[in-house]
């Protein structure tokens, strides 16, 4: 858990430094800062494990409450630099589903999971006029994923957490509200899989975590006057 906070803190500090550096920059293009909020489906790609558990529960237990593959609220920030037809974007987002639970007879399952991502994107812009454009881009992602799986009968608890490098592609559009503020819609699909990670509690089992998934992000962006 400590490691998680350290990594998240370092990533946020780096991002804040970049934002501060932008204040003093002199360039031909435009800088903007954005706040994002949206949703993602199945964070940390739990679907195969959940389907396996649900299937096993349905075929062996008499009373089953299936685990539902979760939707999760996602939020984050981003910083963008636009130069002619190019877009450079660095973002940070966090997501954690509220409650992921299931029950098979007396056995109760609770899954706790979260994901932190730092995507760096290079994209191509199709501009119509200033601050009105459609873009498509791709890049690399630093992810930190955490997964805890707890069962009551028999009592079991597994915890896996690690940094996961990956890549993503994204698509989006932006339109102005005022001369400095815009609204944006973005879709990011990301891929990435960890090496087998050792269970942090018992240390006996190993498991990979996949960060494959899709994020829908709606944003408000502020263009920094140069």
């Amino acid at each position, binding site marked *: 858990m400590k490691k998680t906070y350290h990594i998240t803190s370092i990533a946020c500090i780096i991002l804040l430094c970049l934002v501060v550096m932008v204040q003093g920059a002199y360039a031909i293009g435009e800088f903007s800062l954005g706040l994002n909020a949206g949703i993602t489906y199945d964070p940390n790609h739990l679907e195969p494990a959940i389907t396996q558990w649900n299937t096993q529960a*349905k075929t062996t237990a008499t009373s089953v409450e299936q685990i539902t593959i979760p939707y999760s609220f996602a939020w984050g920030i981003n910083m963008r630099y636009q130069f002619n037809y190019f877009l450079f974007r660095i973002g940070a987002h966090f997501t954690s589903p509220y409650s992921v639970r299931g029950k098979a007879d007396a056995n109760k399952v609770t899954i706790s999971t979260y994901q932190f991502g730092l995507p760096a994107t290079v994209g191509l812009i199709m501009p119509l006029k200033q601050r009105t454009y459609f873009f498509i881009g791709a890049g690399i992602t630093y992810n930190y994923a955490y997964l805890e799986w707890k069962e009551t009968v028999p009592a079991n608890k597994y915890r896996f957490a690690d940094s996961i490098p990956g890549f993503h592609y994204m698509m989006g559009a932006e339109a102005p509200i005022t001369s400095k503020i815009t609204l944006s*819609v973005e879709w990011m699909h990301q891929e990435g899989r960890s090496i087998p990670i050792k269970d942090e509690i018992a240390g006996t089992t190993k498991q990979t975590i996949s960060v494959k998934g*899709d994020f829908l992000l709606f944003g408000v962006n502020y263009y920094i006057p140069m």
Partner: protein
Amino acid sequence: MYYKLCIVLLCCAIALVPVSSLASPFNQAISLYAGYIPSLGGNLYSYEQENTFGSKTGIDGINKSQTGFSTATINRLLGATTGATFKLVMYDFFTARIGANYFKSVWGGKGKTVYNDGADRLLECNYSFDGFDIPVTVGIIIPFYKDMKITFSCGIAYAWGRYKNKFESDAPLSYKGQFKGSAYPLVINTEGEYFINDKFAISTSLSYYRGTTNVIKDSKKGDVSTDYAPIDFSGYRFLLGVSYYFKPI
């Protein structure tokens, strides 16, 4: 039930927005389209395929061959889809949409493979998938010159699907499954429109859905097994259509 009611109310709210005044910042349009869906239903996993036929990855893992058996490759399903979308355009740049789509598998999902239940046996497999969905999305429109628009929108759909499978061999047993269920997949849509006059446009679009139901119990009676499977709505959709705008653009 609550979600269904919300969808219906949202639909009514969009339809009631007035567009009669030419000065109104709102416009409305209706699109009709058709297209295809590669890999409809995903890998079509079911418990019986894993338990009896040794395929943990559904249709992908079911294909096997053996000397002396005339097998035929079982391909993933290719689906056809058609539907209509009602679009609300706000202040030229913003849009909210609600649609209704029907989809059905039209190719693939049939063939012969081999499995072993103590002896090698030829197994005839048959998969099919159909359903409908109601996507609700919001997004941004980027107009290009006077006669083109690119729209990017995201949202959620209510999707209902029916997945059927059938496995028959020269053994006396046959396995038939039918699974019906609904989910709320994530939806992303990118659309390009070319206006042939000030009210009609030809459109192409790419949609991406991501969502799966819980595990559903087989509702088919009269065979030897009770199967379990999720219904997967994830995948891409490629569409071609026409749009009619109520007010000139």
